[in-house]
């Protein structure tokens, strides 16, 4: 009887439901703490109030507009970043000459906190969309670039030799062997780049203002509308979760061969 109970608990703990349960429990605990006034309700609004505010701003179309602007910018800049980073990363991984020429530059720029380039970007590009896109793209280029470069460098030399033996040109080896072989590692870099694009999209909006979810949150904070502020933060959490899930689904579909072969090797 007792063993059965333990097994049942264990089977529940093995599902992803536990993560959802944890969030709900934590929310309820905060709700109680606030309603008992153990924490100051002025600074920490009740989760139920936050949800009400979230529902209201969603229904009025105010929040969806800001979310749309933030995501739109993040997506455009992220796409630009990928279009630059993947080919350039492959080039750096493929060509010794290009690597020697550009790697010091890449290594100098890469660890720079991306928010540090915002003042420089404002100086040259003003505070319009081009500056915002530049900053987001600049920040998300590096993880993708470095992943592509390392992945191409790490392509099995036997595969490259096979390409040469089959009389493929250097270009064909890059496109038909190195690129697909490097794709799983590039995808990992792209996932990190996506998170960075979202973060920078919000950061720029907080610093420069105007519109977007980042602006929405900061504006709510400055006008002491904390429920609104938290509603915006909850929205970020949901967006992050959805973006990662979408990417994972895409990754599993496109790189099915990789996931299955890895599973088999285990």
């Amino acid at each position, binding site marked *: 009887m007792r063993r059965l109970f333990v097994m049942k608990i264990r089977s529940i703990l093995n599902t992803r439901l536990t993560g959802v349960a944890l969030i709900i429990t934590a929310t309820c605990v905060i709700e109680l703490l606030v309603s008992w006034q153990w924490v100051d309700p002025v600074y920490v609004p009740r989760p139920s109030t936050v949800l009400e505010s979230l529902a209201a701003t969603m229904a009025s179309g105010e929040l969806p507009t800001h979310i749309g602007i933030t995501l739109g910018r993040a997506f455009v800049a992220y796409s630009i970043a990928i279009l630059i980073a993947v080919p350039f990363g492959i080039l750096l991984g493929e060509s010794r000459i290009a690597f020697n020429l550009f790697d010091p530059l890449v290594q100098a720029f890469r660890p720079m906190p991306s928010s540090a380039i915002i003042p420089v970007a404002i100086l040259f590009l003003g505070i319009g969309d081009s500056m915002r896109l530049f900053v987001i793209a600049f920040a998300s280029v590096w993880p993708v670039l470095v992943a592509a470069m390392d992945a191409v460098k790490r392509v*099995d030399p*036997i595969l490259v030799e096979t390409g*040469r033996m*089959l009389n493929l040109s250097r270009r064909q080896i890059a496109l*038909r062997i190195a690129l*697909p072989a490097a*794709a799983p590692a590039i995808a990992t870099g792209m996932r990190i780049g996506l998170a960075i694009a979202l973060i920078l999209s919000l950061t720029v909006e907080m610093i420069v203002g105007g519109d977007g979810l980042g602006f929405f949150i900061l504006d709510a904070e400055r006008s002491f509308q904390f429920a609104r502020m938290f509603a915006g933060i909850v929205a970020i959490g949901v967006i992050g979760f959805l973006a990662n899930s979408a990417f994972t689904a895409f990754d599993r579909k496109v790189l099915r061969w990789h996931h299955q072969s890895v599973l*088999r090797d285990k």
Partner: protein
Amino acid sequence: MSAPAALRLSRITKDFDGNVAVSGVELEIRVGELLAIIGRSGCGKSTLLRIMAGLVQPTRGLVELNGKPITGPPEDLTVVFQEYGRSLLPWKTVVSNVAFGLSASPMEKKEKLERALSSLDAVGLLKQAELYPWQLSGGMQQRVALARALARKSSILLMDEPFGSLDAQSRLELQDELLRLWSSFGMTAVIVTHDIDEAIYLADRVCVMRGSPGVISAQVNIELERPRVQVETRGRTEFSALRRELYEALSERNKTPLLR
């Protein structure tokens, strides 16, 4: 020297930054011949094979294919690598992998696919055409690599330790498979191996390589009748005599004697 030379190596030396892997090798591979090169690990036999394939440039010397010097991997030559599993593209199905062998040819896609299928048929893997390489056993992966080589219809096939990592049973089966394909396709084949028995069983001629630096120290003609049959051929007295001769040629002084 009755048949003309398909491949001719003249005074081949390969020096990897002061480390001489191959030194002054002279070798002629005749058209239609099956030549085996045996030697211990690290004696330079894989390097020699890569030089024949145009994948590695010799420091000195000349490789000629049908009388013309080669500077890169020639079209009429295919290599089956020791790491055959790693030489298959994991994102392509078996049939696409075989057709990939024809990537550089101007042939139409449909024709490539037909050729790939008929080569798979020749190695008995038609049923596995739509599977991925990682879904196959080592022996089957080796057959895919072999089918890819056959699809190219190269006149020269070079194989580096092709059966080294297979279980004993698959190894024997694939040796016979190779002999069957070699005789029916009329190829010239070079096989590098460290297995003396395998070399005798397969080859018309066995070259013995000694290491540091790699030189060809002996050549033995194998005049066992064909077709060869595993248990019978290996049981013949000539086979044991050849084995003894090759062990002697391979063994080094100051080592535990394998012969009395």
